[in-house]
């Protein structure tokens, strides 16, 4: 045994002595690795722009020393320790620093660098009013262009429809020069302009260096969206553009406004991404701040067997109504795909939102940067659930079955929940907070003793979204039944009434693009928004090629006064969620 112990100790000593391959201490990356470098624009001008004309300072911060070779990615090299280099053409380059070190080894590191062509920057220089409004505000502009060689520049401006000069003369294009006049470089401008139409009015600029000479070179086009508001306050409709941004339309009530005849309402591009599948938008306000909440179900919005509970990619984003203060409220990135947010509404100071099929959560309107909570041991449980399917008496063959997909969510002024479901358990389910039980067993016991709390509204109806106009006692539903697809107005069912699918007040036959080819996952129209002022119901309509209404893709409203749907605004954007900020404003 003694020999065995000695052998054991010898083995451990041998391990300790030989396990380490590198005898030399390694210098850690605080901040430099063996070879590393940084780069920045030299000087004080355009330091964040990386223009073609910019001198770029490359700085070697390597620990290793030796012969230095810089390759700038455009075929040119340098052996200077810290070169300053100017690229002659715009493009994306890979810069490599190679050090043939004194230890006989070569080390290298490569970083990308984007060199941008010179682009003019157009901005508003002066405006005669705080907010630019139609027909009143005069606006002058400023063009900035890095031009150290004082080259002659030609600009061609293209104005949006309805642009005039200060005297009211129509302006469509303007060609101006930038050139030296004596000792001074001067740019010709179109003068002060006015705009006739509401929305983002896009001015496009085409630019040429040395125009008309053999050295003529056209630069990348640029543009400016001039945000032009109403001449009187109006509510604002926000919509999520498919594969685009959040946009906004001023809601003009033609019959009761002083907006001049012929005024067109174009959308404002808020410049904030709408996400992948922004099924719902919600308007909410707190502490004198107003936000639009963007409920993005993510690319994985449809069923997937997410066995590892990590395929979720949805999130809720808050955007100030003017497009600023954008922040993530809660993210489901990397969590269960079932938990991606589908639809919701604001109630008091909280946002209530459903996931794909299981439950409804809530979060404070002022919450930011939260991650969806979820127990790793039970994918069907989420700490923030207000309720889920199985805690209602409707669950388990009493209406809602497992997997029933959410198709709208609403809570009325009396505190009554309305929860739309499709796929398994088509219908709208109503309940109060007191009808939500702590356990499934409690819910089942309550069903046995008392039955359902309210009749299921139109059990069997194939709906994709709905909303309620409490003031006008109307229930609006988007149905996808093969022979009955389209927009419906129903009388709002009373507490003891179930309503009838065929008992509609009005029906507008329409067909929206389903997006997904799997019947139960088809998207169609995802949200309806009631304008309290007019009672009109707005939605983003993505017209299918088979659409019988011939309204085309864009923003559509249903007017209960006429019982008809019509297009609204100068947009043919395909969209998903819609929300109305009822606070009248000239801009946002």
């Amino acid at each position, binding site marked *: 045994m003694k020999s065995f112990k000695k052998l054991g100790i010898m083995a*451990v000593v041998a391990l300790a002595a030989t396990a380490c391959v590198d005898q030399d201490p390694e210098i850690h990356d605080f901040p430099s690795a063996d070879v590393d470098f940084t780069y920045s624009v030299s000087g004080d001008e355009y330091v964040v722009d990386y223009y073609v004309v910019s001198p770029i300072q490359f700085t070697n911060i390597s620990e290793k020393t030796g012969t230095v070779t810089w390759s700038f990615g455009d075929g040119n090299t340098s052996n200077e320790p810290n070169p300053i280099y100017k690229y002659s053409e715009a493009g994306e380059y890979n810069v490599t620093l190679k050090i043939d070190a004194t230890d006989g080894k070569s080390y290298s590191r490569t970083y990308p660098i984007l060199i941008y062509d010179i682009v003019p920057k157009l901005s508003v220089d002066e405006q005669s009013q705080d907010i630019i409004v139609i027909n009143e505000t005069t606006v002058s502009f400023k063009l900035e262009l890095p031009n150290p060689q004082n080259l002659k520049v030609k600009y061609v401006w293209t104005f949006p429809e309805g642009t005039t000069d200060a005297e009211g003369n129509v302006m469509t294009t303007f060609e101006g020069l930038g050139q030296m006049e004596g000792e001074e470089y001067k740019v010709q401008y179109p003068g002060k302009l006015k705009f006739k139409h509401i929305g983002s009015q896009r001015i496009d600029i085409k630019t040429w260096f040395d125009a008309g000479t053999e050295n003529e070179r056209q630069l990348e086009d640029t543009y400016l969206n001039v945000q032009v508001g109403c001449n009187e306050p109006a509510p604002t409709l926000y919509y999520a553009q498919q*594969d685009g941004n959040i946009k906004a339309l001023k809601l003009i009530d033609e019959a009761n406004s002083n907006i001049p005849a012929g005024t067109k309402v174009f959308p404002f591009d808020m410049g904030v991404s709408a996400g992948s599948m922004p099924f719902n938008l919600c308007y909410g306000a707190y502490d004198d701040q107003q936000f639009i909440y963007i409920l993005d179900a993510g690319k994985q919005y449809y069923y997937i067997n997410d066995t590892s509970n990590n395929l979720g990619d949805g999130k809720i984003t808050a955007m100030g109504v003017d497009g600023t203060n954008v922040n993530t409220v809660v993210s489901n990135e990397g969590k269960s795909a079932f938990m991606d947010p589908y639809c919701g509404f604001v109630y008091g100071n909280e946002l209530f939102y459903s996931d794909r099929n299981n439950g409804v959560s809530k979060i404070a309107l002022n919450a930011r940067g939260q991650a969806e909570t979820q127990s790793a041991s039970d994918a069907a449980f989420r700490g923030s659930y207000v309720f889920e399917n199985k805690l209602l008496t409707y669950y388990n063959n009493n209406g809602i079955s497992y997997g029933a997909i959410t198709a709208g969510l609403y809570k009325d002024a009396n505190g009554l929940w309305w929860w739309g479901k499709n796929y398994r358990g088509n219908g709208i389910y109503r309940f109060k907070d007191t009808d939500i039980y702590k356990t499934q067993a409690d819910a089942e016991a309550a069903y046995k003793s008392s039955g359902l709390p309210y009749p299921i509204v139109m059990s069997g109806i194939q709906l994709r979204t709905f909303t309620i106009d409490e003031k006008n006692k109307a229930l609006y539903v988007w149905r996808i039944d093969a022979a009955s697809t389209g927009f419906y107005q129903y009388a709002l069912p009373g507490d003891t009434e179930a309503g009838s699918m065929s008992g509609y007040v009005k029906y507008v036959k329409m067909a929206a693009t389903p997006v997904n080819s799997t019947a139960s996952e088809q998207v169609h129209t995802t949200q309806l928004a009631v304008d309290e002022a007019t009672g009109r119901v707005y939605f983003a309509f993505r017209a299918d*090629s088979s659409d019988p209404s011939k309204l085309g893709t864009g923003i559509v409203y249903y007017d209960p006064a006429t019982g008809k749907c019509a297009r609204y605004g100068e947009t043919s954007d395909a969209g998903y969620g819609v929300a109305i900020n009822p606070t009248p404003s000239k801009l946002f």
Partner: protein
Amino acid sequence: MKIQYKLSLMALGVLALTSCEKHDPFADNAEIGQYVPTAYWELGSTACKAGESFSFSGKYYTEKGYTPDRSEVWYSVVRKQESSATLQLAGSLLSYNLTIGEEDTVRTMLKMAEFPHSMAEWDGYEYVIVGEVPTSSTLAPLRWAPGDTWDDATQERFDYYFPKATEKTKSFTDSFTTVVVKSLQDDASHGALRKVFCDYPFTNAQITEVNTKYNVSIPLLSDKVVADPDPQAAVTEKSDNWYYLEEANNKKIVGYYYNTLVDGKNVPNEVAIDDANLIEDEANGNFSYKVGETLYPAYPVYDAAAWLFCRYDNSTGSVKTTVRPEYMPAFAELLTIIKFEEWILGNDGYVASFNRKYELKTQFKVVDTAGNVGKAYDTHTVSIN
């Protein structure tokens, strides 16, 4: 002795575990002994207009004996580009969209703003710095769409923005048209092919060329008398030619076919209506075709244009029409005449777009006077709009 051995072994074991720099389980997870400032931060907004600044609030502190020197905001630039086009010429009978997206880090992580420690305020627990970080107006998003006119300028812009061919990949236009032309040759796309053939103004010269090349007889526009001088008559004529509408609608039986299985697929074999091996079951009116001792179920073939195989399809219980294989190369060649921009021209103009957006991957660092660098755990993404 036993306890001495055990203690010795334990001590040597610890030595073995920690003496190796390459396989040190402790140092792999923590930088033991290397002190850095503690920092965390949040952004005022995760979206920022190009050329403007984004705001942040950073918090940091150092251990006793260390003094903060400055805080820094670093960011890298990520470019996201997406080129997209949607087939229009086949109407709703064939849907196809090609979207090619790419995401690249185009500038590495670089220090973009520095704030001296003197700008920070002590809130009783840590230092708080509120600052702004500039962005470039060159990072503005770009969206380009061709509109409703495809002239030289449009082509020039399209070529500028849309992916070109590389050694390994086709150009955007080649990728698009290859898939469309191939899809239109599928049996299931018969209706779409008909629509394209009818809607596109192929010339007689083009049709004659493929007829000769492939020894087929797609009719010329003048092959059928058109009484109506309406400008749309040519389309009507092509449509009529395509279907032989009257005959097909009346389901005039011109033959029968039976299926044999070849490589797991049903291959139809047509037989004449008076073929002696075609046997009718007078009890139910069904037909069979006898090959040797085997009886195959046989189904009607209806009268249609020479290039169409119009028959009763037992699997669907309905009439099915497909283009005959010997004609398909001729139609496929006609399809290649159609230019990319003609495939994507719809009622509202050319359905294509190019989108470019930039994002900043941002990081907050605090440096103390000894040069130690602490990084905030959270990196934030700022969308440039």
